[in-house]
């Protein structure tokens, strides 16, 4: 029983580290299921992180930060859509542009607004999303085993964490139980069929990238106003790309993607724990190498050495109506 209690902090950290991955991976999933490649997750999350922290500082309210961050995520995804859907531009190039644009613009605007070398002022308690204690967490905390799991692992997280956990079933339900979801998936596989059924390919895909933008907005908000206490330059630190890897690793399906995110979050939490620890046989724990495991695993999966990750068929190809 003891070991379970000692594992709880690691699982708790896993959930915290997986939250931005889950939100971004779901964003990527919706966009790519509609046929639009999204490697701009990283940039959208970074821009959102800055916006959330800036607005939280200026208004003193994290919810204002969240709303603005989702707005910025939406705006960037509309640029992506304008380039890729309306003008049939290269989706990868547009994503790269958004990433680079975000890492430049956040610092430029940050310096202009706050004159702190691109950071936002450190957020106070009121300006951040604080931990929420779920009902009964304290009274149940004494119950053996389940008590600590409920009180320390399930309770005590911030709003965006619970939003991330709620987003997964919502996305699943949307994709597999609604007409919109059916059409969205169809437009990523065979847009011509959707078009001939009289449904607009363009509008469907726009809605796909817009949902992605909103979710990246929540992910960024989490980074700067819940997990952290303010914006630091480049604070997304490759998480958008790990999320992309998780999305592929989960084969573009909500539940497997959730597990991939939790797995990658667990690796990160484990690596942080192992920092400087001497291990038998290998000596000091190779933390940097543990941190690249998500990427290695994704490459191996993509190579088809275990399982097969088959992307949506129309992914990356702009749709041209026949004339």
């Amino acid at each position, binding site marked *: 029983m003891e070991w379970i209690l000692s594992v709880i902090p690691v699982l708790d950290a896993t959930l915290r580290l997986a939250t931005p991955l889950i939100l971004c991976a779901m964003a990527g999933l919706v966009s790519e299921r509609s046929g639009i490649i999204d490697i701009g997750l990283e940039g959208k999350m970074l821009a959102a992180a800055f916006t959330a922290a800036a607005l939280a500082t200026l208004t003193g309210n994290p919810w204002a930060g969240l709303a603005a961050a989702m707005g910025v995520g939406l705006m960037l995804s509309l640029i992506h859509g304008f380039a890729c859907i309306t*003008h049939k*531009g290269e989706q990868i*190039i547009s994503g790269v*542009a958004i990433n680079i644009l975000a890492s*430049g613009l956040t610092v430029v605007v940050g310096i*202009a607004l706050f004159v702190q070398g691109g950071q936002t002022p450190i957020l106070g308690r009121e300006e951040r999303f604080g931990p929420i204690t779920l009902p009964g967490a304290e009274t149940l905390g004494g119950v053996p085993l389940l008590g600590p799991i409920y009180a320390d692992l399930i309770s005590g997280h911030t709003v965006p964490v619970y939003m991330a956990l709620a987003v997964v079933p919502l996305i699943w339900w949307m994709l597999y139980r609604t007409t919109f979801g059916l059409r969205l998936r169809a437009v990523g596989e065979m847009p011509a069929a959707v078009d001939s059924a009289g449904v607009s390919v363009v509008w469907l895909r726009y809605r796909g990238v817009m949902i992605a933008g909103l979710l990246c907005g929540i992910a960024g908000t989490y980074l700067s106003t819940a997990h952290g206490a303010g914006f630091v330059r480049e604070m997304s630190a490759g998480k958008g790309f790990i999320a992309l890897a998780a999305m592929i690793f989960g084969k573009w399906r909500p539940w497997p993607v959730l597990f991939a995110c939790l797995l990658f979050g667990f690796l990160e939490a484990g690596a942080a724990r192992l920092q400087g620890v001497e291990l038998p046989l290998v000596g000091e724990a190779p933390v940097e190498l543990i*941190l*690249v495991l998500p990427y290695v695993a994704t490459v191996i999966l*993509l*190579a088809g050495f275990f399982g097969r990750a088959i992307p949506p068929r129309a992914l990356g190809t702009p749709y041209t109506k026949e004339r």
Partner: protein
Amino acid sequence: MNPLPRWAELGLIPLMNLTLAFLVSGLVVWLIGEDPLRALSVMLQGAFVFDGGLGYTLYYTTNFIFTGLAVSIAFQAMLFNIGGEGQAYLGGLGAVLVCLALDAVLPGIVVIPLAIIAAAAFGAAWASIPGYLQAYRGSHVVITTIMFNFIAAGLMVSLLAGPLQRAGQSSPQTREIGEAGQLPFLHDIWRGLGFEATTTPLNLAFPLALLACLGVWLLIWRTRWGYALRALGHSELAAEYAGIPVRRMIVMAMMISGALAGCMAVNEILGAQHKMVLNFTSGYGFTGIAVALMGRNHPVGIILASLLFGALYQGGAELDFEFKTITREMVLMIQGLIILFSGALALMFVPWLSRRLA
């Protein structure tokens, strides 16, 4: 829709896209309360007029030529190599390993060519894996090269903080390489010839980069292999039908691309810094995408685009000195806008323009 005349497609459209990118950048400068025209003039002077400015500009240009060529050669086969960053990183590893091993025992005339070959070989090897996986296992090269960038970064952190770290130091970098592993600076050569010259990091890697442009041009447009590569880029099926070994071509294209990206390390490590520091690639690999886009995947275009980005980088450093609220990140933003307008939105003006010109 009528096809555009050549001058419009090659001259007018890129110019319009670039202008739009700079207009939006100017708008941002104006919004944060600075004078866009003054910023532009500071950038131009910093890049070309001030003492040593041109040297720095050409030094940055060298990096961009290598990474731009790398992206472009893969693009000829319709492969998106966005792993230039990781390939350049590994190229640096190759170069620095040769130098650390041999700089005390062999003369420069041997060490330097070996180090250049090692840089190219390591870059090629790193790119060959995504190439192989694309050709034979069907995994998308874009995703695998992104992943390989991160794997390279992790690998290098553990090497630079471990076996490669300079003895007795805590910062993650190698020891300084000896003179036998250093490419001569152009200012030294210039002074040797009796001229005056300002000290800049511009070194012999610059003419090497120009040679690489010539080499790529010959390879792509003057050899059978290059023809096969372009055929593959236009239609994989047609290439297959014509008897071109498509899979082997894909791996080879990625390897040459990786080798060129790896050569960026020649400029940085053998030429300018004389040691390997953490993240020495600092985004040059990604900028290569913008360079190749702007340069329309042609060596001449790539030289011009590299010069543009070199001037942006050097001029951006000058902005840092001159303005309180503008830093180098402004350049990153401009770069993002250029990629957006000249890359993703490249075709935005085409319908409008073809109606005008018809």
